[in-house]
Each structure stands twice: as structure tokens, then as C-alpha cells.
């Protein structure tokens, strides 16, 4: 994640996936006009794109492999998505955009989708894209038992090629998130049967339809150069001759390389450094809204937190504006709904409990723990932001008689602990990989089917779960919006977790760079980028 200032040095579990998703309604519209400007700081620079040059991009995580069906870490995903493309992608505004497909037809019962492939698309070796390639790639992804995101293809029962330019997908039931699922990077298209090579041979020199190619991939490299694909289906693009990714996991060093001109772009700028980078005359800072929320989670297996009044009391007591001010240096927005504002079907009118100490005390008085109690707060000790959050929350809960001990563990130990429910309170972030909100809704509310027992909280509200499942099959945008608004309100009132803030993706970009933008899933396309 972009805001991992001081994350455990080196490889972090950046569970980031660039994704594409459906966006029938432009819920990319975020509160405040300034958002739109921040989203694309460099498009304002008018001018004709110049061809040529090598973009140098400092990245915090290096790729270990380039197989879309097996990828989950940011290093892999944001490299292979320059090589392999899916049928639809998500634009920087959060909208589903036809990509290798130009459109689709859907049957009346919503269980059969027919995708029409874009004519004239070739792989980088010149062979034309056909329906057989699409069927091979998506079947491979969904049937991969070790695939971290194969669950997103769970609704598909079978795929078939109709001729060379149509692909039919049969679903087990009407599934509204389907188009969104299809656009996840894991469903990127490769040549059928790896073009005759073995799998290992293929991924060492991968062939895709994307704007750039890689030759001789080695894991654990300090840098990786991607060359322009001359057969790319968008005429005239990419503008760049090459992209050089330099992998620098130390935040300070990466920012210094940006300031020293060694790279044009750096990802994951620590919030504390934003002000000084903005002041530099040759740089700009891009703050891109993300489908990401930092959460304070309650363990409902613990008697204290099974009590709804206790959870609500704590929610009332937490001043999210103070948190954001203390920890994000003005870059993040204070939390409210458990959906981030950039996510489709975010309901602006969702109630926010607090901040109000009086209401917090009143709520606590209704609980079985009215006199307060001792508790522990588990955090990933390597993330500076969460240390700050924990300290602020500790202070904010004191007046309630709640005595918080901060329990900071290193990243791997932290993951092991909360996944075993060895915690009372913990802080972590939740993301959506695709533009459809079902992923976040299920993961955090559907205690049985969501895959994480409601984000490891054990939150079980049958009414909310029923709404989540209903929304999965609802295709009317208006009705769907209403369902998600109800879900967000229920969650706000039950407070199984407290959404603390919405952190943006923070990138430092040289003023030489034009056309760079990041979508809310954290992915950036580079065929539109040119160097002045």
C-alpha cells in the first residue's frame, strides 16, 4: 500500500492488486472538487505527446514472478499488468472500460454472458488474439487451486469459444459483480497453451497483448526493463521506448532517488514526506483515491466486544479527524462508512457515530462493562502510521475508563496472531481488488461465506448477510445502491469495526512526466505516459 511509511523494511505483504471492475454508476465522483484535480495532476499539462525515452520508475516491491493466475503481491501485479491485459479494465476514475472486449450480451436469466473481442488485437509476437486464448487463460486462472484470487471467478461454471472472436461464459447463478471479476488482473489473457512452450519457458519470456514486453525475467533483480511492444493494438502507443523499474524497498532511499533525479516516479511516498516533495520545484505529488480503509477491529469472541454497546461506545469516543491529522499529515480522509468514498455504491448519508465523549459514556453505561476495563490493541509494529493511531486511540479511550495496552508485533507475527483470533482489538487495512463492492461487503460482513469470518471479527448479523447476498444478484443499479446503503447503515450502527480513515495512494512524480494516473485499485497504465 502506498502509505506504508516505515513498513517492515524490505518485502511487505503489499496485498495490492490492480483490478478492473464494473462501474455502471460513476461513483468515482468523490466529495470535493479538489479530488478531481488531485487524481490527474499532470493531464492539465497540455501538449502533444512526445515519442521515445525511458521512464525510470522507483518501486517499493520487486516482482517474484509474472504469472497472473498466481500473483497477489504488488511487485508481481503492477509488472505483469503491463504485459497481460484482461477483457475489461478499471479507469483511473473507477469505471469499467472495455479493453480486449468491445462489449457483451447477457441472456435474460443473467446466467450467460457473450463477450465480443476487439478486432485486430495481436500478441507481442504478432499472432492474433482469438477466443481460444481467452478461454484458456481464464479457465487456467479459475481452476488454479493455489491462485490467491481464483475465488473471484467462482461464479463461472464453464467458458467456451464461439468462433474466433466471441467468448461465452456460463454462470452458476445471476452474479452482479461478474464484469468486475472478469477485469481483475488475474484474468489477463495469454496465448492458448503458452504458444507451444512449457509454462516455465513461457513466463521467463512472457508474450501478452500489453503495451510492454519483458525478456529474460529473473526474480530477485534490482531492476527490470520493459520494452515497447511494437504490435500493441492502440495505434501510436505506448509513447515510451522503455520503462525501467528500479526496486528500492527502503522508503527514504526511494524518495531520495526521486529528489536526486535518479527516477522519474516513485510509488508509496510516506505521508510525512509529502510536504517537502510538494515544495520541490521539479516534482509533483499525486494523491489518488483508493479502495482502501483502515479499520479498528473488535474480536466478538471476546465477551467485552460481543456487547454492541461497548463497540458503539468506543466508536463514539474515537475522533477520526484527530487521527488523520496526527498520522497522515493531511493526506488521508477521516473514516465514516466501511466503504471508501471512491467505491461504487458508497453511501454518503451513512451515519457516523461520534466523536462525542458524552454519547460514548452514555453508550458504555448501557453495557455490562460500564466501569471500564483493560484491553490490548494489536498492531503491525513496523507501520509508523499504526503506531500513531494506536497511541491516539489509547488516549481517546482513557476518559471512558478503558485502559489500552498496545501490542506491537512484527509483520509475520502480527498476521499469525489475528488470523488465529489471538487479539482483542487490532488495526489493519481492508481493500477492494475490483470496482464491485461485493468483495469488501462479503469479506467483512458475510461471516460464513466471506472467507474471513467478517474480517476476523466474527460479526454475525443475519439481516446484513441477507442483504449482501441479495445485492450479489441484483442488476438494477438503483436497487443495488439502496441495498448497499442499508448494509452500510447496519454496519455503522452495529460497529463491528471502526473505519478510521481512507488513505490515498501517494506517488511522487517528476514534472517531466505526462499522462500518469493511478486507478483506485492501485494500478497504473503506462501506454499513455510520455516524457517532456
Amino acid at each position: 500500500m502506498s502509505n506504508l511509511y516505515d513498513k517492515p523494511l524490505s518485502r511487505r505483504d503489499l496485498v495490492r492488486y490492480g483490478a478492473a471492475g464494473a462501474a455502471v454508476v460513476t461513483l468515482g465522483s468523490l466529495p470535493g472538487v479538489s479530488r478531481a484535480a488531485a487524481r490527474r495532476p499532470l493531464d492539465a499539462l497540455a501538449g502533444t505527446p512526445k515519442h521515445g525515452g525511458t521512464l525510470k520508475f522507483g518501486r517499493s516491491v520487486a516482482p517474484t514472478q509474472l504469472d497472473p493466475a498466481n500473483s497477489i503481491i504488488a511487485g508481481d501485479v503492477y509488472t505483469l499488468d503491463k504485459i497481460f491485459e484482461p477483457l475489461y479494465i478499471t479507469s483511473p476514475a473507477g469505471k469499467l472500460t472495455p479493453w480486449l472486449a468491445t462489449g457483451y450480451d447477457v441472456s435474460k436469466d443473467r446466467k450467460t454472458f457473450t463477450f465480443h473481442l476487439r478486432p485486430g488485437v495481436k500478441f507481442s509476437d504478432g499472432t492474433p488474439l482469438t477466443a481460444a486464448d481467452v478461454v484458456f487463460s481464464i479457465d487456467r486462472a479459475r481452476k488454479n487451486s493455489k491462485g490467491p484470487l481464483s475465488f473471484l471467478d467462482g461464479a463461472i461454471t464453464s467458458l467456451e469459444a464461439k468462433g474466433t472472436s466471441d467468448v461465452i461464459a456460463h454462470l452458476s447463478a445471476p452474479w452482479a459483480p461478474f464484469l468486475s471479476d472478469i477485469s481483475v488482473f488475474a484474468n489477463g489473457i495469454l496465448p492458448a497453451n503458452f504458444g507451444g512452450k512449457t509454462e516455465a519457458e513461457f513466463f521467463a519470456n512472457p508474450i501478452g497483448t500489453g503495451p510492454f514486453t519483458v525478456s529474460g525475467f529473473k526474480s530477485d533483480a534490482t531492476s527490470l526493463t520493459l520494452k515497447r511492444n511494437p504490435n500493441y493494438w492502440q495505434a501510436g502507443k505506448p509513447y515510451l521506448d522503455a520503462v525501467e523499474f528500479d526496486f528500492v524497498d527502503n522508503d527514504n532511499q526511494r524518495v531520495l532517488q526521486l529528489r536526486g533525479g535518479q527516477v522519474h516516479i516513485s510509488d508509496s511516498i510516506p505521508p510525512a514526506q509529502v510536504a517537502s516533495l510538494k515544495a520541490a520545484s521539479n516534482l509533483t505529488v499525486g494523491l489518488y483515491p483508493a479502495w482502501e480503509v483502515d479499520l479498528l477491529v473488535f474480536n466478538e469472541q471476546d465477551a467485552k466486544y460481543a456487547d454492541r454497546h461497548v463497540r458503539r461506545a468506543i466508536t463514539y469516543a474515537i475522533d477520526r479527524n484527530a487521527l488523520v491529522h496526527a498520522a497522515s499529515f493531511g493526506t488521508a480522509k477521516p473514516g465514516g462508512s466501511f466503504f471508501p468514498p471512491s467505491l461504487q455504491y458508497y453511501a454518503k448519508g451513512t451515519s457516523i457515530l461520534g466523536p462525542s465523549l458524552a454519547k460514548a459514556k452514555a453508550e458504555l453505561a448501557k453495557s455490562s462493562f460500564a466501569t471500564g476495563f483493560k484491553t490490548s490493541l494489536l498492531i503491525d509494529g513496523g507501520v509508523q502510521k499504526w503506531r500513531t493511531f494506536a497511541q491516539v486511540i489509547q488516549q481517546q479511550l482513557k476518559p471512558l475508563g478503558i485502559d489500552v495496552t498496545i501490542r506491537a508485533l512484527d509483520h509475520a507475527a502480527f498476521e499469525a496472531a489475528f488470523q488465529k483470533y489471538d487479539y482483542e482489538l487490532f488495526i489493519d487495512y481492508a481493500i477492494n481488488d475490483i470496482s464491485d463492492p461485493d468483495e469488501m461487503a462479503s469479506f467483512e460482513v458475510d461471516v460464513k461465506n466471506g472467507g474471513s469470518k467478517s474480517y476476523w471479527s466474527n460479526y454475525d448479523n443475519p439481516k446484513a448477510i441477507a442483504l449482501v447476498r441479495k445485492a450479489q444478484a441484483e442488476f438494477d443499479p438503483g436497487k443495488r445502491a439502496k441495498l448497499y446503503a442499508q448494509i452500510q447503515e447496519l454496519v455503522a450502527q452495529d460497529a463491528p469495526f471502526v473505519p478510521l480513515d481512507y488513505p490515498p495512494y501517494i506517488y511522487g512524480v517528476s514534472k517531466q512526466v505526462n499522462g500518469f494516473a493511478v486507478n483506485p485499485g492501485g494500478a497504473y497504465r503506462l501506454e499513455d505516459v510520455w516524457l517532456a
Partner: protein
Amino acid sequence: MKAYAARRLASAALVAVGVTVGTFLLLHVEPGDPARLVLGEHASPSEVAALRHQWGLDRSLPHQFVRFLGDLAHGNLGTSYVDKVPAATLIEQRAGLTLALVVTATLFSVLITVPLAAAAAARRDRPVDHAVRGLSVFGLGLPAFWFGIVLIELLAVRSHVFPVGGWGSSVQDHLRGLVLPGLTAAFGIVPILVRSLRVGMIEVLDADFVATVRAKGIGERRVLFAHVARNALVPTLTLLGINVAFLVGSTVVVEQVFALNGLGSLLLRSITDRDFPVVQSVTLVMAAAVVVVNLLTDLVAARLDPRIRLG
């Protein structure tokens, strides 16, 4: 001499074994599941269990250790959980850089230490001496990563004399890229070496045999370098040998600060990722290197000073 060498070799081997066992135990005792980390949050318990089984993590600790030793005996350092390539490959790719860094740092530390210590010893209790001693105390408390960042800020970001980080691709780039990291690492040990060498030289300067040499009319310069230095050298050489261990350890921090892809940053990354085979292998390689260096310095010291090998 032979008996001494044999004794030292035996204890060196024991140290290597001790480090290996200690690392193994520490790794397996701390919480954190590498399989979970690799598969991500959405993985089901059965998927995680399958991967753990594949890696042999579901067997008992003694069994795993014996298996590790067996592999080691065949020259197999294991396969990285994260990169899925042999640990030996990763180490090979990175060892050259760390070796170059440690050699550079050692060179710098010698080049800085000897003149400073000689100047301080020769002009004892005069301003030069006080300045050197003061600087050395200051240096003892200096955090390496802070010093490195300051060097980067002054000599790389502002003046482009050296690269901000990384070590480039050509030999020339390599040399340029090692200057700042080498200096940073060297400054970690220079204060102690300066103090030691200074004290050693003072002791020798006060010795009777030096008075004799001076009485014979030999010039001060020759006194210092031909007679004093050699005698003062032995304890400092031993200290340098010990400090190479510190230098190797400091590569973990220095490589992070300067974005160098060496063994230090590999070790750090692997610990965070719980990449057991890589942590084991890198620790073993580093320990072996340190042990060899110490062995060599002990042997050289014994050669220079007969009292060591006979005592």
C-alpha cells in the same frame, strides 16, 4: 604454529555449528507462518496446510533440523519460499556486492584509522590528539543509517558526485556506488580502531626499546613506522578481525539505506517473510565468512607476534 592453527580451526568449526543451530531454533520459535504469508489472506486452511506439508514444516523440529543438515552435507542450501529459486542462486547473485562493500569499508577504515591514530599518538595531549579523541567518542554514538542519509543528502542529492543509491551496472558505476556506503560502514568501526591503535602506539612509544632506538639516532618517522607500528599493529589487527563481524552485520542496515542488493538486504527481507531456507543459508554464509576472517587475522597476528602462538 601448526598446533595453534589446528586449535583455532577446531573452535572456528564449533562456532559455525553453533550459529547454525541457534539460527534454526530462533527461526522456528518465533511466530509467523511462511505459507500463510505467501498464499495471502484469502487462502483456505487446507491450502496453507498443503504448502506447509510441501515444505516439510509439519514435521517435528529435530526432524526438520536433521533434514536441513542432510541437505547441507550435499551442498543443497534449500529453496526460497518466496522466490522459488535455490537459496544458493540468490546468494551467488548478491554475495559479490556484499563482499565488495565489506572490503571497501575495511579499506576505508584502515585508510582513515592509521593516519588519525598516528597523528594522535605522536602529538599526545596536544590539540590534534584531543580532536581525534573527541571525534572518536562522537563517532561511537553515531547511528549508521543517519550518517548514511546525511552523506546521501550532501554528496548525492545536492551535488550529484555520487549516486543516491544502488550500484549500477559497469565497474565504474560499482566503484562510485560503493564509496558512500563504504564510508558509512567504515565509520561504524573507525572510532574503536582509532582508540585502540592510538593506545597501542602510545604504549609502544613509551617502551624502552623505542627509547633505545631513538638514542641510536634514528629519525622519528622511521621510529614510528618501522618499529612502533609493527608492534602496535597486532592488537589492532585482532580488533579489526573482530570488527569485520560488526561490518558484516552492519551491511544489513547500510544496504537498506543505499538500496544495495546484497546479502544484508536479502537477510532482512527473508526474516520479514519468514523465508526459512534463505535465512539459514545467508546466516551460515555470513558466519562462515566472519569465522574465516577471524581465523586469518589470528594466524597473521600469531605470525607477527610469537608470544601468541607459544602462549
